[in-house]
């Protein structure tokens, strides 16, 4: 910090944090601009999904209709949605515990070994998914690995950096002392696992599971190249609709069908936490409560 005004006087309305002092109108206008940046690409998507007839120079659709949503009730679309759900779920169920194990291993192993585990588990980030699939594809074919299993295997590898990273950052701020206090107070290892470690890592587990689910749910290129048309998921339907022109309604409705479920899950997970924070109650983790109760019982 170099050029501070000597004698710069803290005014009574001293801002908090970065607190840009500028006129509130200007600040709000800038905020609106950012909201605009985030939401504008989604506006045509929503409009096209409910558009009946929307001819070229018209800014808004001439007629509105929900007919395009009928495609979601077609058996083919439902099957594709089910495949996507199954793919996302399977990838998440496998990649989440593996991520936790990898993160714990990286922490437990000393120096160079720990760093090697970290490096290997981050390596898939450096490999473009299409390159990973292309090289592995012929081996998968020769070993007669079914398309679904092949896609799951590759996507688990793609998802592992994310799940490992989630657990790594949770473990980095993990309060070992909670476990130690519980042990000191006479808890056996199983109780520690159930009442201390599991609750403390639950938020990271949810986040890791969500990210891994998204890898499978929204995947296009791996399913395309390995599935070879045998595995039809929602993104596959969307990709073929978007590649040709004149399918605006279909693209819009399928896009919403892919976007909305994860956003709802995200809101369901994030909103309660936000509300809790806003209520400004002291953070009471289940583990903290349990340790406090034990402390009281022990008369400490």
């Amino acid at each position: 910090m170099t050029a501070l005004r000597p004698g710069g006087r803290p005014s009574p309305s001293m801002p908090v944090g970065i607190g840009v002092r500028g006129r509130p109108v200007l600040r709000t206008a800038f905020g609106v601009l950012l909201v605009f940046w985030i939401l504008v690409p989604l506006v045509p998507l929503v409009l096209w999904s409910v558009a009946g007839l929307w001819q070229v120079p018209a800014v808004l659709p001439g007629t509105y209709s929900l007919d395009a949503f009928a495609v979601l009730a077609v058996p083919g679309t439902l099957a594709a949605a089910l495949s996507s759900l199954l793919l996302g779920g399977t990838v998440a169920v496998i990649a989440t515990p593996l991520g936790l194990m990898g993160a714990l291993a990286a922490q437990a192993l000393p120096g160079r070994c720990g760093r090697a585990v970290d490096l290997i588990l981050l390596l898939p980030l450096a490999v473009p998914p299409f390159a990973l699939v292309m090289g592995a594809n012929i081996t998968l074919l020769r070993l007669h690995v079914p398309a679904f299993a092949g896609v799951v295997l590759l996507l688990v590898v793609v998802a592992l950096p994310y799940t490992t990273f989630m657990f790594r950052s949770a473990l980095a701020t993990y309060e070992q002392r909670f476990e130690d206090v519980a042990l000191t107070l006479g808890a056996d290892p199983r109780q520690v696992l159930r009442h201390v470690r599991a609750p403390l890592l639950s938020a990271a587990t949810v986040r890791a599971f969500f990210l891994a689910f998204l890898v499978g749910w929204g995947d296009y290129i791996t399913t395309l190249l390995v599935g070879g048309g045998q595995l039809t998921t929602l993104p596959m339907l969307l990709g073929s609709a978007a590649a040709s022109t004149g399918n605006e309604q279909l693209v819009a409705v399928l896009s919403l069908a892919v976007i909305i479920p994860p956003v709802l899950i995200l809101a369901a997970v994030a909103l309660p936490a936000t509300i809790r924070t806003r209520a400004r109650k002291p953070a009471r983790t289940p583990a903290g409560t349990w340790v406090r109760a034990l402390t009281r019982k022990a008369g400490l």
Partner: protein
Amino acid sequence: MNIPITGSRPHQADPHSPAPSSRQDLTPDRYAARGAPGAVTLRGVVLAVPAVVPVALVIGVSVVGALAQSLGLMPFIGEPVLSTDAWAGSAGDLGRSVLVSAYIAVASTVASVIVGFVIALYVLATPRMGRIIAGLSAATIPIPHLIGAGAIGLLLSDSGFLDRTLGLPPAFPTLVGGSWFGAVIFEYAWKESAFVALVLIGSMSRSVSGMCDAAATLGATAWQRIIHVVLPLSRPALAVSALIVFVYTFGSYEAAWLLGPTSPEPVSVRAVRLFGSVDLAARPEAMATALVSLGAGIVAILAGLAMMRRSRGLR
């Protein structure tokens, strides 16, 4: 949020570090269970194997398979014949594709880092409106790039939503399918700026407020606080997220395929087109392209990490 850069392990509760005072009351057998300091414990190895083996195996098989196929040693059908045609014969096209991908990745990274920084700054500086923007921005992260590309197509194509609302002049450059990859870069900037903002907010939210308060008390203007406090604090997170965005956009397929022109092709589009070609002789070229993009990603990561390490050393 701590960003562990390939193994730098910041202040975590390391079971092998000298015990702080609160741990001295542990029973001796609990210590024994944690293993001697610095030893490779059985528990560590058992935990590592299920995660490390699939990753190492799949990447190993993939790289070896791609290399063998690019040299004609693992043909789809027929006898293996060693040949470097896939590398030598198309070196010019391959080089052009690498340049196109590098251009897209650089432009997208610069745009998303700038926009992401501005979003993070606004979120940290403006409590109420900032929370709304943080929520909206985070909500775009689960949107797959394929959907982002479809949406940007509806927005930016000729006769797209932007053209309808603003009535763009005919001289306005073509964004979707244009030779400058405008729509592709816009899509990456839109999606990845939200990612950059999320990483920045997570890494700075705890430290930045107090330091800015201190700077403000000393008389720093808002601009000085941004330049001398926020920017230095955000540098590690900015560097890591920029590196991730660069590597990702370099090898990403969906947006480049849907929104880019048919020629010139970025590496991903070229590789997938050759891979799906009815001409099986195109396979080795597809593999060479895949390997080149993998190599470029690794070079970018190593260069980025070296730059980060050097800048940390200079400070």
